[in-house]
């Protein structure tokens, strides 16, 4: 390894670029620098190889554990069974790895509906919390969890509150949003439907949009179209056109 110094900031920038997290304008100047600055190119290469080596080392360790774990399982399992399990796991790992690292192949494994869901879904941003001392405290506390991405904890708090406020459009809307953010589209459906029983609700339009997306993710395209069309989301015409083109 060539003894080149990479500062913490440089390391962060390179990792952001390699993981696709650099904003487009910065990514462009980054690429320009890679093309024109040999030392920078070498730094990028070092970061990439180091990342690959660490990942590979961890993967290797996991494969070894599978191997050893099954070999010593029981006298009846035998070497052959262990081998079958190992082969199955490796094949599964191969497919998963392949799936994760190759965007081209993602298209072969994900349905059109799921792809559109991923393309259009942005988690509900949440409300500003005041953290008052009244009965809204628990709701606000849940909102802080929600905004930190702790959707399970947020929903646990809100589901408790829901017991005494079954028809609250706010609670139902955010519990549904929490489930959707957790990737549990099917569990979000009923909560959004409660919100839609109140046309005056401030969340009426957004509930239509997210319910449509949840149904889309579940493969229920016809129903999804109805709710998406009923929303006022700025992306709705584009999504409807994409759905129509399928």
């Amino acid at each position, binding site marked *: 390894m060539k003894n080149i110094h990479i500062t913490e900031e440089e390391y962060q920038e390179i990792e952001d670029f390699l993981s696709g997290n650099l904003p487009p304008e910065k990514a462009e100047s980054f690429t320009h620098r890679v093309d024109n600055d040999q030392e920078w190119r070498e730094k990028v290469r070092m970061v990439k190889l180091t990342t*690959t080596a*660490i990942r590979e080392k961890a993967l290797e360790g996991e494969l070894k554990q599978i191997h050893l774990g099954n070999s010593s399982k029981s006298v009846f399992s035998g070497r052959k069974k262990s081998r079958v399990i190992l082969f199955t796991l490796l094949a599964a790992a191969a497919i998963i790895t392949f799936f994760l690292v190759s965007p081209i192949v993602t298209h072969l494994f994900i349905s059109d509906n799921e792809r559109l869901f991923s393309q259009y879904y942005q988690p509900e941003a949440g409300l500003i919390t005041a953290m008052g001392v009244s009965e809204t405290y628990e709701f606000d506390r849940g909102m802080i969890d929600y905004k930190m991405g702790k959707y399970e904890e947020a929903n646990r708090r809100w589901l408790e509150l829901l017991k005494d406020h079954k028809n609250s459009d706010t609670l139902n809307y955010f519990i549904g949003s929490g489930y959707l953010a957790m990737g549990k589209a099917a569990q979000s459906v009923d909560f959004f439907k409660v919100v839609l029983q109140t046309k005056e609700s401030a969340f009426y339009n957004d509930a239509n949009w997210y319910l449509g997306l949840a149904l889309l993710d579940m493969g229920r395209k016809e129903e999804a179209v109805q709710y998406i069309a009923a929303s006022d989301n700025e992306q709705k015409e584009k999504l409807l056109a994409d759905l129509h083109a399928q």
Partner: protein
Amino acid sequence: MERYVKENRGNAVQAEDIYQEAFLTVWRNVQLERFSPESQADFSAYLFRVCKNKWIDVLRSKSFKSELFTDKELNRKAETEYDEEEDRLIDLIKLHFDELGDSCKDLLSKFYYSKMSMREISEVKGWSEATARNSKYRCIQRLRELINRDSQ
């Protein structure tokens, strides 16, 4: 793959080892964009090709030297993608990774392999996010020092 190895003077256990080794090679080549599969069939064919190459290497090794090659195909290795200098460096990094302390190994594995965010890691470790970031950088620096020392 198992059938191929068995048909060519190997056994099931050897097939298993070859498969594991080949899988890691393919994984590395995909990570470094040396090989970009366009379909699942493409991927499977490549994996099989790497397995075959590795088995041919075994057959050409000392333990099989006394045996006569009759299969023409065994004398012909399929082309796969390698970069000797890069591969050597990756192997060196992996070797020195073991010399890091448990805390560093755990932190780096969580970030690079388990894909945990710095925020998630800081929560698990009870650190601030800034401490987690700084620790990660220091662990990488330590790893680089070990490699540089070895290269001198």
